């Protein structure tokens, strides 16, 4: 498909009222879920459950609408309450929360929103620009390259688990293993399925497993902690804090354009690299800004606006950049991208070479939806922060039962099978214990999502090539070498970011990277 033709098709699709409403609706949901700590991921998972009942552009519009604002509105609880809305907002707390305590929340928030917008749009431009190049590269790849690429993707994500590297690799292998349950796609032979349980013939439901492993434990954590996110603050105090310093924030962003440029560049590079999650990048960019900005060693951590601008611009650029390997290769580099990959599969799209060759308009649609949502997000956050801030006042004990209902509904509606509910409970139990016992869940989810793709390429590769042919292909060698370099580099960066203090100024230590037991 011609590049310009794909752009035209994507724009005409976005212009349709239904799709436009879906993008705006998704943006509204993303704004709300980003402002509520622990709800962003379950929110996206709920969408996976109902996506199969929607037309493809509507489902994608909703998902991309949701994706863009999460990393902008997550700065709201980070600045106002010292609680990161998502893991990507941890470093924002370091200077955002002290600024709010000094009565300069408006400055921190508006600077954060503008920096987010610039970061998001830059990331999207790079996503669009890189696709024609990516198309050429992936067309050179054959089954062995995709097989190795998939394995390396899971491995690198696991390897950056730092001291818990082997735990990450075991979790990734468990994910690959549970993907084997069900009828073998090549020969139709039922694997690990008792004859009396035909429910398992189609394998474990992707949506239900993701909800159980990931979303349910998050909401359970929120409920068990049972803290009002905004304890100690009244809604009037929240409103007063936000209203002040809007223009000052915009000026601060324009004044620090080179800092934004450097942070965005780091965010994009880190986003493309498998395994470097948002939380790692967030601290990395913060540390980088602290070591390169004038006088930052003394002022960072005490309420320096540059400490808000750097991570906020980077995490939004990362969000778009992480879609590059997901769309071009079908290999998710992060748990969020595994969810997007699941969504693409659920609505009938297969990311990878076929998507780039036959459906480039879909890729452009995704990029433009993200751009539109980012612009709308900034406008809404700047002018409606008062309302969004009130959402952060909702008590966890009120919020959690509602989210439980949505999760159960999402699990059921994904396949309309009541047996998905016991599976949800079982997956929830596993996810909860993984979390409590210090087992990383993202490699498991990525392994589960990538499993069927890997199996297909494993069969093709072994039927077409000998092992020696496969392992001596230049593409395979290049991927293995790149993966080793990335793993070593990413591990070092992860260790460097681990040395940063974790949200020490916030009243609640929520959403932070957990120490392994």
């Amino acid at each position, binding site marked *: 498909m011609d590049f310009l033709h794909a752009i035209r098709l994507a724009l005409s699709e976005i212009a349709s009222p239904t799709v436009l409403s879906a993008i705006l609706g998704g943006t509204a949901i993303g704004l709300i879920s980003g402002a509520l700590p622990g709800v962003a991921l379950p929110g996206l998972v709920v969408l996976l459950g109902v996506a199969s009942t929607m037309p493809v552009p509507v489902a994608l519009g909703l998902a991309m609408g949701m994706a863009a604002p999460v990393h902008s509105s997550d700065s709201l609880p980070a600045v106002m309450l010292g609680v990161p809305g998502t893991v990507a907002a941890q470093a924002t707390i370091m200077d955002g929360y002290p600024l709010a305590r000094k009565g300069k929340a408006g400055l921190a928030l508006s600077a954060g929103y503008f920096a987010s917008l610039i970061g998001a749009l830059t990331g999207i431009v790079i996503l669009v620009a890189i696709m024609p190049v990516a198309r050429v590269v992936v067309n050179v790849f054959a089954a062995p390259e995709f097989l190795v690429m998939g394995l390396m993707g899971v491995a690198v994500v696991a390897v950056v688990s730092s*001291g818990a590297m082997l735990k990450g690799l075991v979790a990734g292998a468990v994910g690959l293993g549970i993907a084997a349950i069900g009828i073998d796609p090549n020969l139709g032979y039922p694997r690990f399925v008792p004859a009396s349980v035909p429910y398992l013939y189609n394998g474990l439901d992707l949506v239900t497993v993701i909800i159980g492993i990931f979303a349910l434990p998050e909401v359970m954590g929120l409920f068990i902690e049972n803290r009002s996110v905004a304890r100690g603050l009244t809604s009037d105090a929240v409103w007063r804090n936000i209203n002040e310093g809007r223009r000052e924030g915009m000026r601060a962003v324009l004044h620090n354009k080179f800092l934004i440029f450097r942070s965005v560049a780091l965010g994009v590079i880190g986003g493309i690299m498998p395994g470097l999650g948002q939380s790692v990048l967030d601290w990395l960019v913060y540390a980088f800004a602290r070591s390169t900005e004038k006088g930052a060693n003394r002022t960072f951590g005490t309420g320096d606006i540059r400490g808000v601008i750097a991570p906020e611009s980077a995490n939004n650029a990362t969000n778009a950049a992480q879609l590059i390997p997901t769309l071009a290769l079908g290999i998710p580099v992060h748990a969020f991208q595994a969810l997007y990959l699941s969504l693409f599969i659920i609505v009938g799209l297969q990311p990878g070479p076929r998507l780039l060759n036959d459906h480039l308009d879909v890729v452009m649609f995704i990029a433009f939806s993200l751009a539109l949502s980012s612009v709308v997000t900034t406008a809404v956050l700047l002018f409606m922060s008062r309302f969004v801030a009130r959402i952060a006042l909702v008590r966890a004990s009120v919020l959690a039962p509602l989210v439980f209902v949505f999760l159960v509904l999402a699990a059921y509606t994904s396949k309309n099978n009541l047996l998905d509910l016991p599976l949800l409970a079982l997956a929830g139990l596993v996810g909860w214990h993984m979390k409590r016992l210090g087992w990383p869940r993202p490699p498991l989810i990525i392994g589960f999502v990538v499993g069927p793709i890997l199996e297909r390429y494993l069969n093709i590769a072994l039927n077409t090539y000998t092992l020696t042919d496969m392992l001596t292909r230049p593409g395979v060698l290049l991927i293995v070498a790149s993966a080793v370099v990335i793993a070593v580099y990413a591990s070092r960066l992860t260790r460097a970011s681990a040395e940063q203090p974790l949200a020490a100024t916030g009243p609640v230590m929520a959403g*932070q990277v957990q120490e392994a037991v």
Partner: protein
Amino acid sequence: MRTARGLIRLDLVFRLLIGVGFAYMIVAGLAMPRTSFGTPGLYPIFVGSIGLVVWLGLHVQDALRTIRNHTQRGRIYDIAYEFGDMPPELVRRRTLQTFGMVGALMLGVWLLSFQLAVPIFLCIALRLLARAGWPLTLAWMVVLELLIVVVFGSIAHVAWPRSVLENALGVSFQTILGAPFRRVLPF
């Protein structure tokens, strides 16, 4: 202390299950039929072997760390809530309460149907457990009921499961509750 010991015991069971799972994948994969087009056991053997190697590696590493008295276990790549400042007893009670809530909701769906179980669950969870006001509780009950009956049931045509109660009474709550909306909706 009791909690920490319990977690260690649970971790051992979890590790054992994983190891047995990988070994079973290899054994079951080898027992699967071989055809001229290949074998369905290839993928399980492939994954089981990789899994077993890294699983063994993990335990060798743990053993070496114990021998060397190395306490630093590194960080996992995940997010989590910290309950360090909460009494373990409270965490355990709330954990059980949460599992109980989710289980009760699922049981309610099986026995009563989504249409009845969800509003009842919300009423109990919001009004009794969260001590929310009646207006908020009722508002959410109505919103969720409309979502189930109108959006999912009448517009998206989700096939709700027949509950035990519906089977016993010989009725469908979706048909009864969705009737007024079907007359209004154009599709």
